[in-house]
């Protein structure tokens, strides 16, 4: 296994200006992605997981959004120092995204093949005919039956699952090195979700594409990812290899989340564990650790000072932003 780091995000900060004040949607987020691996970013709504990934591609609308600090290093080069022109080449060609809602992401009045071919013509300068042939090949690859005929359909003639597959075909058209999937299956039924996840898994295996999987579903993470970052209120609270996260969670939020989901592989009946309260409003994040008002293990320090990311067991890729892991508070 080569452990080549393909993407590195360092100290990313993104804010939005609103009528009520500044929202720190992403607050000092760092992570790295290795070639051919799948990184999961889990969090609830408002945790900043989607904004993080939009920031990577500089897709934040200004105003109201603004990336205020940080670096995104893609294959050794800082993306934020590149011109808009250069970033546009990276987008789509080297890093592609798929979004949650395939219907609003596709243009309703343009034929399906043409939308897939667009990126090919743009980034590879393919001719129309050639691009159409490649588009049909891609439709076949993602398992659309009668691809030749369906290529001439419009998006509304496709079902939700098929539209999401078209989005994947578009994202893969230029053989990207990184695929960012933002809740790609949230709008889909489970049996269709299984098809889509299988498709992404196979494609990333065959072409050793790196994947960033943004989701709120811990089941999807367990199925797809090699490592995980857990986000809460704009910060990464825990990062770990997949097994460590599920079998040995170190942050009280991760633990609470894992305990509170009902699971089909466990008998029902008993009460579920709950995390009290609701995720904070990002306009007034509580002082100190953002999770502290909901945390069962909150200590004095937690409401005073925001915890740094503590390294667990000397493994730099295993961190938890929780004071419980500071030497002076850790009595276990």
């Amino acid at each position, binding site marked *: 296994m080569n452990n080549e780091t393909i993407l590195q995000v360092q100290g990313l900060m993104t804010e939005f200006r*609103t*009528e*009520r004040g500044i929202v720190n949607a992403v607050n000092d987020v760092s992570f790295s992605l290795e070639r051919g691996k799948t990184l999961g970013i889990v969090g609830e709504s408002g945790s900043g997981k989607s904004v993080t990934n939009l920031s990577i591609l500089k897709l934040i609308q200004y105003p109201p959004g603004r990336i205020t600090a940080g670096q995104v290093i893609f294959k050794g080069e800082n993306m934020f120092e590149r011109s808009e022109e250069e970033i546009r080449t990276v987008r789509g060609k080297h890093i592609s995204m798929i979004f949650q809602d395939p219907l609003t992401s596709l243009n309703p009045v343009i034929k399906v093949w043409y939308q897939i071919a667009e990126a090919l013509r743009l980034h590879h300068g393919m001719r129309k005919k050639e691009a159409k042939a490649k588009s049909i090949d891609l439709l076949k690859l993602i398992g659309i039956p009668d691809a030749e005929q369906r290529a001439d359909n419009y998006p509304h003639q496709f079902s939700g699952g098929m539209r999401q597959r078209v989005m994947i075909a578009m994202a893969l058209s230029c053989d990207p090195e990184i695929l960012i999937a933002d809740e790609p299956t949230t709008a889909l039924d489970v049996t269709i979700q299984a098809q889509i996840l299988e498709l992404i898994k196979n494609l990333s295996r065959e072409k050793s594409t790196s994947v960033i999987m943004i989701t709120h579903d811990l089941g999807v993470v367990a199925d797809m990812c090699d490592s995980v970052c857990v986000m809460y209120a704009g910060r990464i609270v825990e990062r770990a290899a997949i097994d460590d996260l599920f079998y040995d969670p170190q942050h009280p939020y991760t633990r609470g989340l894992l305990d509170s989901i009902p699971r089909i592989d466990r008998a029902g009946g008993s009460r579920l564990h709950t995390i009290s309260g609701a995720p904070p*409003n990002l306009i007034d994040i509580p002082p100190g650790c953002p999770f502290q008002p909901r945390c069962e293990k909150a200590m004095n320090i937690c409401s005073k000072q925001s915890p740094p990311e503590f390294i667990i067991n000397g493994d730099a890729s295993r961190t938890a932003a929780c004071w419980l892991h500071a030497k002076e508070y850790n009595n276990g």
Partner: protein
Amino acid sequence: MTVPRLFKNGIAVTGLVIIVLYVLIIIVSFFWLPFDPSEMNSQRLLEAPSFTSGHLFGTDEFGRDILSRIMKGTTVSLVISIAATALGASFGILMGIWAGYLGGRWDNGIMRIADVLFSFPSLLLAIFVMAILGENTYNVIIAIGIVYIPQFARISRGSIIALKSNEFVRAARSNGAGRTYILFRHLLPNSMAPIIVQISLSLSVAILLESALSFLGLGVQPPEPSWGNMLSSARKVMMLAPWTAIYPGLAIVTLVLGFNLLGDGLRDILDPRLRNVR
């Protein structure tokens, strides 16, 4: 919540100020006018505006004071515009919300009638109605009101249809609420935003329609002054004495502008997408 937002919106405030100004003019005109608006003076025909004579806006072809006539005409114009809008809005909204809420055959029936009315240009329709009803001030109100009915029916039907798929309507039904209750308690209050905007825009169009009708001699009948019939009579002497046309025209333009500004401002204020929800 809406009121302070109104005052933060510059466009709406400008419109409101203009309208309030005209309302003040009406109040003043009840107690005091520079001259008697219907008193003719053969000594002072078509006199240019001047401070010394006291005719600030000049006089018309009968020597009547134009300023006094404009002030008097404000009442006519505003009363017609408000009454016609009220008439059109109340019938139109009732038709529209029932059509939208009941759907099916009712909707089809009511809206086809509205379509027929809608297919005529506003002014043409108003002229038809005036021709049938006869020329007097009350009939101007009715004519403009009829022009407005399909417009209000359309808008209220649309917003009711958009709202009725909300689950809170089902919730109310499952709680034993009747149709009328749901319509007036749940649906209408939530559909007021576009209707309020339409009302303010209708007020301005009514001024124009009234002026147009009066200009064509179908509206307010002389010697009763209205901005429209002032313009109409100015037509013959406009080249000689432009002030006879300029001042009533300015009055129309500014009041219409006032209502339009208020309407545009309200549209921004009431747009839920611009309102910050947590």
